[in-house]
């Protein structure tokens, strides 16, 4: 993720509201994407993001440049998103499904409308399967493969060792494959051996 200019960050840390505004505008799109990928709809994702920025504002003074600023933001966003999901589950006993996810960027060797449907279905099932992962595996998977962070970056965001990220990633993939095999519909029969 791009880093905001150090002088803007320094001014925001010093309590400059205009600089903080700039910081919000600079990071909000990326962070919305992160919160969306955890909570599953944009309305909630925006509410979570608001909590993220409130937390950032309240604690920005204490941030120290030992790690990139964006990784600190990511960490708050992930924590707030996971907290949101937990509360939602506790409150309603269910988690809201992720919104329908199109799958337009899939490998284009499948061209027919039927293949498009199949591809879309893979996307939906995969999204659903990611939802079913345990918290840390989900966080690791989303950060590594959806946000495309490195192991080191993921570890920094999650506040754990790189080995933990690797282990969680490994278990996440293993679990995803189990889930996808278990819930396999007919249309997926060809892809099932692959996934």
């Amino acid at each position: 993720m791009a880093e905001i200019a150090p002088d803007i960050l320094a001014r925001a840390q010093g309590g400059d509201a205009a600089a903080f505004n700039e910081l919000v505008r600079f990071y909000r799109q990326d962070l919305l994407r992160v919160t969306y990928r955890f909570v599953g709809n944009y309305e909630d994702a925006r509410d979570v993001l608001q909590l993220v920025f409130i937390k950032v504002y309240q604690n920005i003074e204490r941030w120290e440049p030992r790690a990139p600023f964006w990784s600190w933001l990511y960490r708050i966003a992930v924590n707030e998103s996971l907290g949101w999901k937990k509360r939602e589950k506790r409150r309603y006993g269910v988690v809201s499904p992720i919104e329908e996810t199109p799958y337009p960027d899939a490998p284009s060797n499948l061209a027919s409308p039927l293949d498009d449907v199949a591809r879309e279905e893979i996307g939906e099932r995969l999204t659903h399967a990611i939802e079913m992962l345990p918290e840390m595996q989900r966080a690791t998977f989303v950060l590594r493969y959806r946000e495309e962070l490195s192991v080191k970056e993921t570890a920094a965001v999650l506040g754990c060792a790189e080995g933990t990220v690797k282990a969680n990633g490994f278990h996440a993939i293993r679990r995803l494959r189990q889930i996808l095999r278990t819930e396999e519909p007919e249309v997926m029969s060809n892809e099932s051996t692959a996934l």
Partner: protein
Amino acid sequence: MSPLHCNTVQEALWERAASAGPASLSPTLVEHMSKCPACQSERRAVAELIDASRSLTDPEPPADIWDGFENRLWREIHGTPVSRVWARWGRSIVGLAAMLVLGFGLGAVAMRVARSDGDTSAAADRQARVEDAVRTELGNEARLASYLDEMQSILVAYRATDHDPSMDVFRRSLPSGMVAGPGAPADADRQRLERQRATREQLRSLVLGMLVTEIESESHGFAYLDRRVASIAGQQLLYFIH
């Protein structure tokens, strides 16, 4: 080829597949895979899964997603009383006050819980009604949930692990039933912790009840509530210590 070795290879595959691809595999892994159909298949499967994940595309956010975002954000921030002071001291104060509530209320609530299991559903109904009322009033579920969680986690899971001398004063004053020392609880505390967990929901109701009272008596949002709770907490703390 031992299964353990295959596991080790396969564990390494997911990481390699995610980054530089086959070229980044060590010669040992490449050699193993050239002879192991299971690992070859695993490698394909992992690569395809990761490709599929990367290909997932999020829907576009609504066009008006940012409308009023910064205004709402600043309202919340400015509404938070002396935000940075609150960030530094407010939570400790609320935490300490919460400990008071817990200390005085836990016994009574726990006894009630122990006495009447039949009250559970009634309590759940009441809590649901209270939550609805608060949610409707505040119109900001995220803020409410965050607020409650914070209060609740302070109430139930508070452990004095810092070295603030003022916390020591309070810690020494804790009722004997409280678990407040640093580190993991001793075995003897487990039953007590179980009781605490059982009262978590009741405590949540108490907090919600307090919020509802505040909402009903004053037309203020959370900004006011934060200030009010901090103020009450501060007074209770001073009273308790002196």
